[in-house]
């Protein structure tokens, strides 16, 4: 039995599909140039599926975190290209759509343990950042609205911490790199900046170091062993009566 036959066993509810179209109204989209009518209000991803596409590439988390579904679109009668994520952007009437299946940008290889976080570290590994012509196309193509050009400028100046901070929300979809006239691989550059900052610049936790030593000296082993050996009633009592910090002090954190 083929996959397609299997799907048809569960009879498609065409009535329901018609109802959806009636209720929401339809818009016309052009998927790689071909016209399809889809219900209004769908995301680009769901619109493609509605039209009959089954994703292999171009679909990952479906929630805006993974950067698999970077999409380039243009609206009829407009010159300008738009950039977004197919899982986040809602279709509009007369949209021309195409997705990037893969980004062939080169990533440098390095051993983070052998690097130092100096003003020239990023530059030494990704020297092409010096070629930035400040056109800001990267920023304009970022679906996360990150100030991409600004963080590249920070990288050029050797300001690792700032580059890491500005770039933090990067989902590595690669649209910036695909648009850059200077062939900068922005999202790889900022990955390096964040790792350098996390490893070398942020102050480390003393509490953690202390706790780690206690765990290594097996300080908690016998306590936990005692809990493991308890019968259900005993541990239930202990659990019920444990003090809850969030309740006493209100929500935690800073």
């Amino acid at each position, binding site marked *: 039995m083929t996959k397609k036959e299997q799907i048809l066993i569960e009879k498609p509810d065409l009535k*329901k*599909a018609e109802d959806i179209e009636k209720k929401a109204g339809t818009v016309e989209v052009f998927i790689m140039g071909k016209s399809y009518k889809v219900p209004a209000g769908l995301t680009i991803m769901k619109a493609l599926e509605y039209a009959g596409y089954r994703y292999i590439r171009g679909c990952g988390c479906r929630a*805006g*975190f993974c950067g698999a579904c970077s999409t380039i679109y243009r609206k009829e009668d407009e010159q300008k290209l738009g950039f977004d994520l197919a899982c986040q952007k*809602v279709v509009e009437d007369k949209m021309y759509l195409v997705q990037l299946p893969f980004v062939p940008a080169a990533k440098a290889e390095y051993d983070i343990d052998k690097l130092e976080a100096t003003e020239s570290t990023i530059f030494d590994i990704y020297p092409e950042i010096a070629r930035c012509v400040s056109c800001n196309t990267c920023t304009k193509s970022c679906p996360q609205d990150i100030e991409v050009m600004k963080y590249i400028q920070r990288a050029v100046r050797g300001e690792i911490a700032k580059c890491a901070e500005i770039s933090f*929300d990067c989902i590595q979809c690669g649209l910036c790199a695909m648009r850059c006239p200077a062939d900068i691989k922005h999202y790889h550059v900022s990955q390096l900046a964040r790792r350098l900052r996390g490893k070398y610049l942020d102050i480390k*936790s003393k509490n953690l170091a202390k706790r780690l030593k206690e765990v290594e000296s097996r300080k908690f082993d016998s306590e936990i062993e005692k809990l493991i050996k308890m019968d259900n009633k005993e541990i239930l009592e202990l659990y019920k009566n444990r003090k*809850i910090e969030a309740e006493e002090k209100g929500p935690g954190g800073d």
Partner: protein
Amino acid sequence: MKVTDGYPEYMMKSIKLVEEKREKNMSQPVKPMSMKAREEALSKHHPDYMKGTKRKLKVGRDKGMLLYNGIVDLLEAKPVLDPKDVDLSKIDYDVDLLIIGGGGAGTVAALFAYESGVSKDKILIVTKLRHGDANSMMAQGGIQAADRPEDNPTLHYLDIFGGGHFTNKPELARALALDAPGIISWHEELGIMYDRQEDGEFQELSGGGTCRNRMHSAKDYTGMELMRNIRDKARNLEIPTLEFCPVAELLMDDKGQVAGGIAFNLETFEYYVIRAKATILATGGSGRLHLANYPTTNHYGATGDGLIMAYHAGANLIDLDTIQIHPTGDAYPEPLVGILSTEKIRGLGAIPLNKNGDPFVFPLEPRDVESAMFIQECKQGRGIVTPTGMPGIWLDSPMIDIIHGEGTIETKLAGEVRKFKRFGIDMAKHPILVYPTLHYQNGGVEINEKTETKIPGLFAAGEISGGVHGKNRLMGNSLLDFNVFGRRSGIYAAKYVKKAKIGKLTLNHLDKYNKMLKQASIKPAKSAPIILPEYRGEMAISRALDIF
């Protein structure tokens, strides 16, 4: 329909009530529930306890076990691979360690196997989508580790065990609690940017069911920050990775050991025979099966393939009679339905409210209890129903800025703010609407402390495994899980590899499984694993031909 600030007028009226009562709601918090009240809420309103969601499995090692219908359907389906179609005499990849799944657990496993002496050209990661396309990438709220002086691993253990309704395998819960500080320390070495105070100590929040604030976070992109760092390290080491090549079935040998797998190239439809001395199953969860008809927060490839192929090979399953529904899936607007709004929103102080603007539950009960209370409130008519008929509960996010100062939401919940802003909703100004969504596979393939399954040569780590969280997982323990058990699987598989000897390769276990289906008088209408979910429009499918 008139829409203001992203909400239709009737929803705005309800928001007015939320605003009027905000001050009062903040000053008079609802207390945590008693154990008895918790049990009552669960038994009445959680799908785990409701009739019709589950049935007994009729085939294989765990025959008679009660499981969710959607999982039984696949376990009682025909193995997707026909052994006759595969030529085992030609080996495409001959490695020491096959890792199935390129998410958090699989990648961590590869790094520690490498550190434990398996050479990188003898490791192979195969993954269904891209390296890093996984639920790991999507986890927002944080990762637990008891490292503050006010806290300790014993308390963490107690939270894990109580949260799991005392059903966890104790040795796995212990490993999770005790390994946690070491994992955070490894992350510091990798260069993961955790949220810190000025003195370098971590900013730690509480989560549902935790008795101390021990949630480490990286804004609300914690999983993404972990996954992209770990993946960067794997890429720097050039650990071989095959993308868009899911393993469809495990490979065995004549001694009954797992000896690799058959991968399927999604683009060319070729198969590859992968022989391995040890195999780590790190295929993740199964949200895309939409058990009990819930929408899901999970990534596209989360179809439970690992459960099916491990069961075909004779491994056993536990705790799959429970699913985790996360209380705060998005209920509005329609394109976001099912997507997660992080528990961190409640961790930072936002309170769930009904349509009258009244609180009805302690905001940080364990997830199953919190969900059950949301469902109850909606069933009793105090939810807000969206224009598409979806019920929901307000989560009063503006409280966060009132508690922690203006701008907190913007900086600490950047991803959430961005998500709602696309639809004209400012969560710093107005509450968001939530309803439970299918989030996590609590159980899975049973493992021990060394991540061994019952089948020699087969290890499992991450969401695919069962026993760590018992019948319910707490927030911040899944990012921890994939690190703790991913690491352990890499280390123990590396040890195993040194002694392992593979015999003659076979796929006989699939023939045997087909026979068992026949003996149980099951006439499978489907085949499994399913590899990807089917979301094509019904009109398009109904007219599709099978001629090309």
